[in-house]
């Protein structure tokens, strides 16, 4: 079930009514929301629900064992729990990729052993809920989170707004909210509505239009297009993936807000970043902070070690962050590009001559946006060869068709413009909307939805991050 559909609209209205009618019902409210989340998830494939339940039970069990047996045994349970989560992820996401690699290596060595792949279907959102499972067992071990009851943890991992594409919510952020009576202030409700509407505009208008009319045609057959088209398609993809993914996060935060839950922000105008380090503080914040806390600091030692080891840790974190997106060489290269540039920025910060004037902010922004855009080409292309071929055609100034029209270029401009608006625009709009009577707010919402309905083309493409 996709957010921008009529089926989801009906589903959400029903859940909203039940949620608030049951606001004093304690655990029964959570049970209702849990069942609703399973229905939502089962809409993609009912078998995935079982995996979700097994994963939640596994993490709950590990959490209990950690609390029951403190000391060295707790550490062993922690390691077992983290590995169990990683094995689930590895099986569904990387098994076939790994087998293909082994098959090719054996064939290269003259050992033509036929290893059979399983053609495993990737459960939607598996990367997100396994990361939440890992953060739960680590946080319980570290004492950052109280152990949750089975119902609470299953709810935390299954709650439908963030289930399939984040944000990755921390147990310490959500568990206390489950133990309180839900609350909905008028400003919070209005801001939630603004987030949902803005998310719809970004997804169904900007991202879909760019995808259908520029990015997909150009990336699917770059040989037919001119260098101008290729450059605009690369810029277009930068905007498309931002609008697509941040739209999902905005809608997830807004939907959870209307049900009385506060989710953290996941994007903060990332293309206004003036360095790559700054970019990662603004892009997919819940994942980047997860990688920082649980991988870079916890496993790889962070920055409190020798410079050489810090650089290796930084590079490895980004490499694994790339691999998290999927089993593909291109994702590894995407991670390596980001990791390499982050290491360069760190080293430059150390060797930079003291008297050298600081580069203006606009130059930093231009540099960061272009580094990120080049990396996105590897992210979007299917193979390494396709990506290098794409870049080669740009550098050679290839002649060919030019399909970019003012409309699609306008969408790129709109996507870029919203990076430079006021940072609290959502809150400002929310405050204004909350001051309007309900019927005015209702009519405004209707008007925006009607315009979105008219502007969007036929159908709704799935969110890009569903594949991760």
């Amino acid at each position, binding site marked *: 079930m996709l957010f921008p559909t009529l089926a989801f609209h009906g589903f959400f*209205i029903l859940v909203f009514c039940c949620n608030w009618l049951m606001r004093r019902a304690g655990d029964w409210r959570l049970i209702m929301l849990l069942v609703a989340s399973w229905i939502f998830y089962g809409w993609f494939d009912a078998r995935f629900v079982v995996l979700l339940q097994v994963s939640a039970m596994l993490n709950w069990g590990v959490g209990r064992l950690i609390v029951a047996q403190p000391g060295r045994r707790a550490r062993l349970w922690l390691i077992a729990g983290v590995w169990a989560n990683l094995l689930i992820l590895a099986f569904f996401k990387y098994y076939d990729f790994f087998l293909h690699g082994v098959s090719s290596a054996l064939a290269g060595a003259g050992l033509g052993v036929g290893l059979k792949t399983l053609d495993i279907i990737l459960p939607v959102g598996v990367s997100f809920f396994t990361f939440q499972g890992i953060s739960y067992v680590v946080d319980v071990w570290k004492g950052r989170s109280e152990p949750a009851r089975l119902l609470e943890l299953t709810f935390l991992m299954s709650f439908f707004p963030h289930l399939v594409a984040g944000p990755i919510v921390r147990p310490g952020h959500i568990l206390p909210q489950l133990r309180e009576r839900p609350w*909905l*202030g008028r400003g919070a409700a209005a801001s939630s509505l603004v987030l949902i509407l803005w998310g719809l505009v970004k997804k169904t208008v900007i991202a879909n*239009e760019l995808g259908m009319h520029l990015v997909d045609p150009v990336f699917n057959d770059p040989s037919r297009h001119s260098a101008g088209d290729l450059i605009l398609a690369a810029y277009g993809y930068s905007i498309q993936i931002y609008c697509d993914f941040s739209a999902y996060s905005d809608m997830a935060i807004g939907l959870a807000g209307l049900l009385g839950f*506060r989710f953290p922000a996941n994007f903060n105008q990332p293309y206004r970043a003036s360095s790559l380090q700054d970019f990662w503080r603004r892009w997919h914040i819940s994942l980047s902070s997860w990688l920082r806390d649980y991988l870079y600091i916890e496993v790889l030692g962070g920055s409190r070690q020798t410079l050489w080891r810090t650089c290796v840790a930084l590079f490895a974190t980004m490499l694994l962050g790339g691999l998290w997106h999927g089993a593909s060489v291109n994702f590894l290269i995407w991670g390596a590009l980001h990791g390499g540039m982050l290491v360069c920025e760190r080293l430059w910060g150390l060797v930079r001559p003291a008297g050298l004037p600081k580069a203006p902010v606009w130059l930093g922004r231009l540099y960061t946006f272009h580094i990120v855009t080049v990396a996105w080409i590897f992210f979007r292309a299917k193979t390494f060869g396709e990506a290098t071929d794409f870049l080669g055609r740009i550098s050679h100034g290839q002649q060919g068709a030019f399909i970019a029209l003012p*409309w699609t270029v306008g969408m790129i401009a709109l996507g870029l413009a919203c990076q430079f608006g006021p940072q609290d625009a959502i*809150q400002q709009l929310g405050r204004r909307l909350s001051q309007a009577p309900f*019927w005015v707010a209702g009519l405004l919402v209707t008007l925006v939805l009607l315009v979105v309905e008219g*502007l969007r083309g036929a159908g709704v493409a799935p969110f890009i991050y569903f594949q991760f």
Partner: protein
Amino acid sequence: MSHGLPWGASPIDLADEAPDEVKSLDAGPDTRRQSMGSGLGWAAQAMVMSSLALLALNSHAFANWADQLPVTRLSEPVVALADGWHDAAGRLGLNAVVDRVEAAATAMRKAPWPNAHP
């Protein structure tokens, strides 16, 4: 209110609704109840209002959704109802907003660059 997520970390947090400020008001817990009541009532009424208006003015979505249902004995009357309502809404001029935006969007999508050769 002891939310684990610090106030201001969520995009739906407005400074004037910060829990500390609510607590410090004379009315105490009642204020929060009042605030919750008005927020919930306001949101629920706005959503009902918007859903009804969409049912009237966006019969496209209803008809599209019905057309995508699997063909069964149960779906037939739903499809007939949705198509009938879409036709009726068209005759009443209720589809005008979506139709006009759609027509404008189609024209804008096709608009060429100035001085472009046809």
